């Protein structure tokens, strides 16, 4: 496994270098097309500057940008204990130094991705749809796949080469457009000498050819590597879980869904475990796809026999691909280890098929809803800004008290953020702090100094919340 990481790093560096040189040469010729040799160096510098700037941004805040784009929400253990436990299990199996942060995207389309610049700052993101569709073993397979991306340093590499690709595309796009509108760089060439003029025409021609070819080549290279990384992550996932069937049937379920993930776009698509933009039944084996065809991945996983080592995956890969491809998907240094790593047995019975409305509840929990079960069994859902203190059950008509404290506690989190922008009201509230001392761990009720009734649930564990009538801060001790 560790040989694999090293081989991966070397490959990344080589690719990174090739793409970087590609970008710099492109910059040189574009600059040269405008203003001769001086311009060439200027273009070189500019290309380097654009690339360095974008790299820095993506290194330090790439993950938060991606998480924000995909509308992912950070969750804790009590929103989905199983997900959290599975991530912990895989963290142990992969021997990562730090527990990755866990995010949920409130969307019914099943998918997942991992991000973060290194194993210490990693995040794993799954959609609510994935959680509601998969059983424990399948979820484990998916999480293991994402953990492998973190372990193999794929995330950093994909971000950086993605940025390089983006810079190349951007530069050639701008150049071709400006050429189109200004009719070539003639304006700038008046100062240069006759010989220079000839040079410049050559420069322009080379630049045009480069501007057309470079993005294409870079893209093909990027996609080819991206596909290879997916296979590698599958192989590592098998190595971690020792259970290929889990990932295989998870992929099957993901590919059978024709829901489209709304928050995914072309730039983030390469990150996901399965292409989130696909239409069902579309054949995904062309050169410009970021993911290998999903049914091929499933077939390889199902073909694995005898063991969970990388060599077993490679054999299954060659079996499925036949004579079509002779290449090795696994770096040969990682295949020296021929020890037999036994597979896990298929469990006989797994209970717990989930009902469809669990998905809705999960999405609501992520979006800070509170639940109350009425005496008749009806589950009533409250958004965090619910104002009334009593509610009539829609099924049996009995009056239920709204769990104000829980709502306030959850809304308090939102309050805490908005307080930073509004300093003034915060001070007013601070003057009016009411301290309530808890008696035990059960349901407790008391009255706020303004007269409104408050109730604290057994699961309430925040240090304070705000009164929904007077806005007073209530400390709970």
């Amino acid at each position: 496994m560790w040989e694999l990481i090293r081989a991966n790093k070397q490959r990344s560096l080589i690719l990174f270098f090739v793409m970087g040189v590609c970008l710099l040469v492109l910059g040189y010729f574009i600059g040269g097309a405008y203003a001769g040799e001086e311009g060439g160096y200027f273009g070189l510098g500019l290309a380097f500057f654009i690339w360095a700037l974008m790299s820095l941004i993506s290194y330090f805040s790439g993950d938060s940008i991606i998480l924000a784009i995909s509308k992912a929400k950070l969750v804790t253990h009590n929103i989905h204990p199983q997900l959290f436990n599975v991530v912990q299990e895989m963290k142990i199996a992969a021997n990562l130094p730090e527990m990755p942060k866990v995010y949920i995207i409130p969307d019914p389309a099943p998918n997942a991705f991992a991000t973060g610049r290194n194993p210490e700052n990693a995040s794993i993101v799954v959609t609510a749809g994935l959680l509601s569709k998969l059983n424990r073993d399948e979820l484990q397979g998916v999480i293991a796949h994402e953990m492998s991306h973190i372990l193999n340093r794929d995330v950093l590499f994909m971000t950086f080469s993605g940025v390089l690709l983006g810079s190349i595309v951007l530069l050639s796009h701008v150049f071709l457009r400006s050429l189109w509108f200004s009719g070539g760089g003639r304006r700038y060439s008046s100062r240069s000498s006759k010989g220079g003029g000839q040079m410049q025409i050559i420069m322009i021609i080379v630049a045009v050819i480069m501007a057309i070819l470079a993005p294409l080549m870079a893209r093909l290279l990027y996609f080819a590597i991206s596909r290879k990384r997916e296979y590698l992550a599958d192989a590592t996932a098998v190595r971690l879980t020792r259970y290929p069937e889990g990932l295989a049937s998870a992929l099957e379920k993901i590919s059978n869904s024709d829901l489209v993930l709304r928050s995914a776009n072309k730039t983030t698509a390469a990150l996901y475990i399965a292409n989130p933009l696909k239409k069902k039944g579309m054949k995904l084996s062309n050169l410009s796809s970021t993911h290998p065809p999903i049914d091929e991945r499933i077939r390889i996983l199902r073909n694995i026999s005898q063991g969970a080592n990388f060599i077993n995956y490679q054999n299954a890969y060659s079996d499925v691909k036949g004579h079509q491809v002779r290449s090795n998907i696994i770096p040969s240094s990682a295949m020296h280890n021929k020890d037999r790593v036994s597979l896990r047995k298929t469990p006989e019975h797994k209970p717990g098929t989930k009902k469809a409305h669990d998905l809705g509840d999960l999405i609501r929990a992520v979006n800070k809803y509170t639940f109350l079960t009425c005496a008749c069994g009806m589950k009533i859902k409250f958004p965090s800004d619910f104002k009334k203190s009593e509610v009539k059950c829609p099924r049996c008509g009995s009056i239920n008290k709204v769990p104000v404290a829980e709502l306030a506690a959850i809304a308090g989190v939102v309050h805490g953020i908005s307080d930073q922008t509004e300093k003034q009201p915060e001070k007013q509230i601070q003057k009016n702090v009411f301290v309530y001392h808890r008696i035990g761990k059960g349901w407790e009720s008391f009255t706020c100094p303004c007269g409104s009734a408050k109730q604290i649930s057994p699961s309430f564990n925040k240090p304070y919340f705000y009164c929904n009538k007077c806005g007073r801060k209530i400390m709970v001790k």
Partner: protein
Amino acid sequence: MIIILVIIAVLVLMFIGMYNSLVRLRNQVKNAWSQIDVQLKRRHDLIPNLVETAKGYMKHESETLKSITEARSKAMGADTVVDKAKAESTLSGAMSKFFLVVENYPDLKANQNFLAVQEELSSTENKIAFSRQSYNDQVLFFNNKIQVFPSNVIAGMYNFKEEDFFELEDKAERAVPKVDFSS
């Protein structure tokens, strides 16, 4: 002259690098071993919760519950590694028997508290298995490092010893299952 100095400097740097990576690997092995202990302890902590939740529902299974509690206290009290391994495997046996019995109690299976404890416990079981697996992976890598040239020279000089693999106590777990079609 300069060339010789450069060569010596490179050799010294390589030496330091290899020594450090060996130390790092040995620490990783130790860390992986302590992970197993952490998870075993977590299992001990969870069992009282489980027994407490199940008690009300399983009036006729007090034997099963008692055997779990006893196995737990034995495992917690064990001093030597051999005793501990033995007690832990007894505990694992008692637990799997318990979860088989639970199938007969649909009320218990529907209890939210019980489901939560069950999820935590089965996850802990998985974590124990995965930490053993991870320990073995680390040991394999470390032992390979010690055996191959050139790091074996340094390993020999500073007395780095090969670590033992974690063996399954239960030999039956490794046996090939027999399939009998005669009946």
